[in-house]
């Protein structure tokens, strides 16, 4: 028997597989297909203070090995998330969840963190400082160490939950931003969010998605994810939730070797609703193939 249990800030997960925010809704679409309690945890759709419809459609474009989305944080707002979505979620998922929050001001982050702090099922608050879709919004916080630190510090003061800062890959120096979050008291780092990308429709000659640019994710971005997880692991002493293009159990091992303690799966869920289930089922076999008895032994292994 192999051990797939890993621990994030005191929360033990049966396995490191976590559906990524924005690609798993609040879980119930997937709960129709399989018992989602097999998951390590899951990160629900990014929540803001006010309800948001998000960006105009089309919001989706296809790429080689990936996709671009410009959903723009569509969500019913923190109040409704707590009053309507979480109770429904609780019926299908019984483990600690990750609450992904977003905002366009420090106050908005604080507001959301404070509200969500009261929710027992929330184990970790994942602070998205990196969504590239909100004008004057998340993006700026994730591209400056000072701003990321300010959000981290403010959120930490209003919550007793573990706070993970989710970083954007669209930066010159991911390490300096991760370090700033560490110094500001973050309990962990999630990375990477989507790369900024764009497609143009040859039939119209215009950008494929209405918002022009959007977040590029899927297998194509995996090498960038591995690189950034590796760099951040080398520089900070916090647990890392790695993500970006993961679609197989092999990918999970690779991100863990780079330094991730747990791994999120995003776009893969959209094209294969059983992606997480398949990865969880494959994981022990692939571990055996590579002679891995305990996942904890390989975290950061590529650095040795």
């Amino acid at each position: 028997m192999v051990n797939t249990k890993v621990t994030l800030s005191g929360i033990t997960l049966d396995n490191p597989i976590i559906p990524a925010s924005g690609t798993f809704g609040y879980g119930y679409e997937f709960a129709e297909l399989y018992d989602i309690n097999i998951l390590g945890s899951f990160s629900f759709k990014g929540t803001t203070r006010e309800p948001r419809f998000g960006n105009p459609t089309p919001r989706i474009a296809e790429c080689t090995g990936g996709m671009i989305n410009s959903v723009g944080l569509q969500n019913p707002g923190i109040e409704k998330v707590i009053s309507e979505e979480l109770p429904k979620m609780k019926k299908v998922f019984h483990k600690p969840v990750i609450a992904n929050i977003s905002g366009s001001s420090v106050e908005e982050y604080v507001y959301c963190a404070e509200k969500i702090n009261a929710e027992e099922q929330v184990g970790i608050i994942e602070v998205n400082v990196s969504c590239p879709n909100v004008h004057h919004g998340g993006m700026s916080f994730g591209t400056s160490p000072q701003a990321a630190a300010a959000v981290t510090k403010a959120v930490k003061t209003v919550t007793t939950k573990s706070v993970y800062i989710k970083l954007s890959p669209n930066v010159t120096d991911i390490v300096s931003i991760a370090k700033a979050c560490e110094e500001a008291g973050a309990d962990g780092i999630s990375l990477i969010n989507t790369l900024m990308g764009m497609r143009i429709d040859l039939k119209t000659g215009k950008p494929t998605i209405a918002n022009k640019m959007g977040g590029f994710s899927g297998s194509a971005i995996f090498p960038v994810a591995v690189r950034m997880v590796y760099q951040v692991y080398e520089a900070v002493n916090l647990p890392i939730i790695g993500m970006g293009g993961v679609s197989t159990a092999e990918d999970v091992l690779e991100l863990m070797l780079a330094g991730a303690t747990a791994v999120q799966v995003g776009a893969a869920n959209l094209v294969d609703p059983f992606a997480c289930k398949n990865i969880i089922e494959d994981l022990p076999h692939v571990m055996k193939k590579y002679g891995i008895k305990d996942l904890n032994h390989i975290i950061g292994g590529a650095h040795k």
Partner: protein
Amino acid sequence: MNQSHFKIVKNEPLTSTVYRMVLEGDTSAITRAGQFINIKIEGLFLRRPISVCDYDDSSITILYKTVGKGTNIMKDLTPSTQLDILTGLGNGYDTTKSGNHPLLIGGGVGVPPMYRLAKNLLDEGKTPVVILGFNTKDEAFYMEEFKQLGIEVLVATADGTLGTKGFVTDIVKSLTAYTYFYTCGPEPMLKALSACTNTSGQLSFEERMGCGFGACMGCSCQTKYGNKRICKEGPVLEKEEIIW
């Protein structure tokens, strides 16, 4: 919703750009006409959403037009190829509101879902009239199939090479004795129909999709009754809720 593998039984051209594919597999998740399936195509990241034209216990018929990468790969697939497909997607048409004489209006590749819908309405003892719109005679398809259901079929072509010269709306405007309408087709057609019909009705929309089953919010639209996902609360919306 269901994910399963289907085997291609038939894949044949109906016109120079529209093909019919018959797929064998588990159809148990399909509950209504107007639902769609989402097809994984080797080598492409996103699945391709295509309406169910007809189905029975073990097979699905789809009609698709070659417009880009995915559909051009599809047209070259040979019988017995296996395809990974999500079935039972979307709300589909609600036939309980049809009254006795509903109009079914399909434009271009909006025609396919009308076929199963017509069969369902007939089974329920109603008398649907079908209006099909195409650009030109050479692009027209499925008129015979509809006629064989024993229902009235009216055709409009933009260039007049078949049926009425003009648009489906020109035919609709000339009709009065209908009780409801169901439609699928290009958005300008849906909008025109919404304006020129004098009954309530249901309209099926297209949107670029990330998942097709409600997980990504890629396909959302705003309606008078709130935000809806085209893939989940749609693709069929009621005339009254649509914000044009």
